[in-house]
């Protein structure tokens, strides 16, 4: 199998995009010492409205402002790229809304139970060579690949 067969759309955008993501996480660490996983942002955002003691823990209340700014940055960065790319760069997914929603509920629950997602375990956890995170990544890659194949077999796209 050749490299071109593994990356039918080319590989440059993937590697440069990945390096850019790493520079973002690295810059956050260099400036503030903070670890830039994304899924904690959702629980931290809930601390604004959910009174249950779990959500009012210091690790959410004390970090929700920078985490929400980080999330705002995600939106702005993707918007800047899309504007620079110009006309036609906008993209609206064809995945049915029910799948976006149900998948979101399951992924959100799982990420918070696990203590990380593709960024927390996949980027920060692997970046700091934490064995539980490396194993967690192998687990979620496996179940995600199986789920995508099952969805296709059941007639989804």
């Amino acid at each position, binding site marked *: 199998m050749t490299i071109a067969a593994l*990356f039918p759309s080319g*590989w440059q*955008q993937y590697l*440069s*995009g*990945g*390096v850019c*993501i790493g*520079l*973002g*996480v*690295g810059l*956050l*660490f260099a*400036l503030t*010492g903070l*670890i830039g996983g*994304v*899924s904690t942002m*959702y629980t931290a*955002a809930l601390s604004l409205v959910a009174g249950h003691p*779990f959500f009012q823990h210091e690790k959410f209340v004390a970090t929700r402002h920078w985490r929400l*700014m980080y999330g705002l*940055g*995600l939106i702005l*960065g*993707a918007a800047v*790229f*899309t504007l620079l790319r110009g006309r036609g760069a906008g*993209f*609206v*997914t064809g*995945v049915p809304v029910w*799948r*976006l929603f*149900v*998948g979101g*509920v*399951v*992924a*959100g629950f799982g990420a918070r*139970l*696990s*203590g990380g*997602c593709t960024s*927390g*375990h*996949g*980027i*920060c956890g692997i*970046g700091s*060579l934490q064995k539980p995170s490396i194993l967690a*990544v192998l*687990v*979620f890659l496996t*179940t*995600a690949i*199986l*789920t995508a*194949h099952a969805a296709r077999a059941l007639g989804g796209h």
Partner: protein
Amino acid sequence: MPRGGPRAVMAAALLSGALFGFGLALSTMVRPESVREFLLLKDFGLLLVMGGAAGVTGVAYFVLPRLLSGPILGHRFETHPSHFEARTFIGAALFGVGWGLAGVCPGPAVAGLGAGDWPLLASVVGILLGAWIQGRFFGRHHA
């Protein structure tokens, strides 16, 4: 809080997040369809994205604490240990199922909105609901 003051920390988080979001859009990972191509093993680009990001992050996490006494805006270099326990892996397995179904994970769900992909709002609301169920009924803090 780092000594640069809350405003400097907020600016740092915004700028870092913007680089992250720019990279997600550049790598096309904000598109559920791109993630799907990987999960169906048709295009292995996602591994380059995750590998490239983890590689750069790994260098930063390894080198910076040896080079500097603390972060540029003060305070200390933090760590976020993950744990060998059932919930780490049960959670990861469920996370993968949801990710495989939706094609987006927590970062791209938010970043995709910036690229104009408004239906991803359904995933953002879903992730919030999932995070609420987890915290409300299964929440536990490490000592």
